[in-house]
């Protein structure tokens, strides 16, 4: 048996990908080394400087938010807790993740709507008393009560749907 380090599913010996979550299983090496020239390195560095990759993930990103309506993916890093909400003029407290550019107002996102945080090996979400509620996979959660999130879950802040993409925690 091979146990997937991502979801702990038991896979048959010899499997390369987890049948439950699709993660590549340990022991499957896919990197092939190849010689690259100094010119190739310089060209790649120049390309990176000019390119703004919207999907690049910071090294220590443990969660990405896929905004489903726009298709945008927001990788989050450097902290264990992020508030989600909408900036409003004159508001003294700002959310860590401002969803204003993603139709947050029209979707009924509150200024401080919810918080997503990492606690040891769990990821949790909590509604901060929003007007239009927070939903996990269609189920409305109670305000100020932490609920667990799994990779692939869809949270909705009002009508704004966000899919949660977790890296190995």
């Amino acid at each position, binding site marked *: 048996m091979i146990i997937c380090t991502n979801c702990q599913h038991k896979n048959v010996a010899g499997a390369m990908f987890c049948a439950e979550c699709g993660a590549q299983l340990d022991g499957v090496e896919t990197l092939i080394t190849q010689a690259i020239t100094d010119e190739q390195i310089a060209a790649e560095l120049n390309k990176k400087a000019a390119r703004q990759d919207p999907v690049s993930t910071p090294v220590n990103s443990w969660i990405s938010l896929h905004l489903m309506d726009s298709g945008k993916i927001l990788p989050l890093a450097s902290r264990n807790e992020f508030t989600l909400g909408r900036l409003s003029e004159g508001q003294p407290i700002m959310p860590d993740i401002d969803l204003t550019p993603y139709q947050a107002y029209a979707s009924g996102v509150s200024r401080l709507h919810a918080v997503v945080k990492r606690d040891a090996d769990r990821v949790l979400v909590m509604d901060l008393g929003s007007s239009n509620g927070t939903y996990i*996979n269609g189920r409305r959660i109670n305000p100020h009560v932490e609920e667990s999130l799994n990779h692939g879950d869809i949270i909705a802040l009002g009508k704004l749907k966000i899919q949660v993409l977790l890296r190995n925690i």
Partner: protein
Amino acid sequence: MCLALASKLAERNIGISGLGIGKEWNDIFLDVLATRTGGSSAYIAQPQDIKRLLLEKFNALAQTYADDVTLSLNPVDGVELSYAFRLERDPVAIPVDDQLHLGAILQDASTRVIFEYIIQPKAVKSDLLTVLDGMLKVSIASHPMPVPSLRLHLSRPISDNPETDPPPPQIVQALSRLMLYRMQERARKELEEGQVESATRHLRVLASNLLTQGERSLAQTILLEVDHLQEKHALSAEGSKTMNYGTRAL
């Protein structure tokens, strides 16, 4: 009755290619019908696709080098062929049977099939394990005489200290894509068994995997199907076909 007829056609080296137009048709049935003869099915979402697909089919017929390519398998104790998938050309899952209809081989083009085996410990009787033992039968129109069947024998060495060389990247790449196709197969099967929650979960995981592989449009379609599933406890006619053929085409 249709499937029995398809089996008879296969015996006479007649292939079936299926084209499903619109939304209201049974893609699973069409697949089974076509693959019994080594053929494949295609999903036509827009009428303008019909001409393109038909041209592809006719060109393929003109370029056929060998058809009715059939692999007859002899049973090997402790070795079970659990899954077969034709990667190239016309990706499709091949029904697992004693006779595998692999489709046609085109001139100057490769046909690639991936097999998944489950090997029991009892199959290991020496330091060499027979994985496949069978005969490959082909029909080549340009040959005046029938081509004799080719004996195929695939074996792998068994060792207490196996080599740690990584598998070829082409195989890993193919498996990573095939995993996505099989995930939607699994979700659809779970739905048939009434396991809506499990199917929903697997479709979400599938969408996540598609996103990480850059298949954003298909991921969006699947997430819409998840919504549909939660409301109606069923997939939409169009969405399920897009999911099936979209993951197959990866």
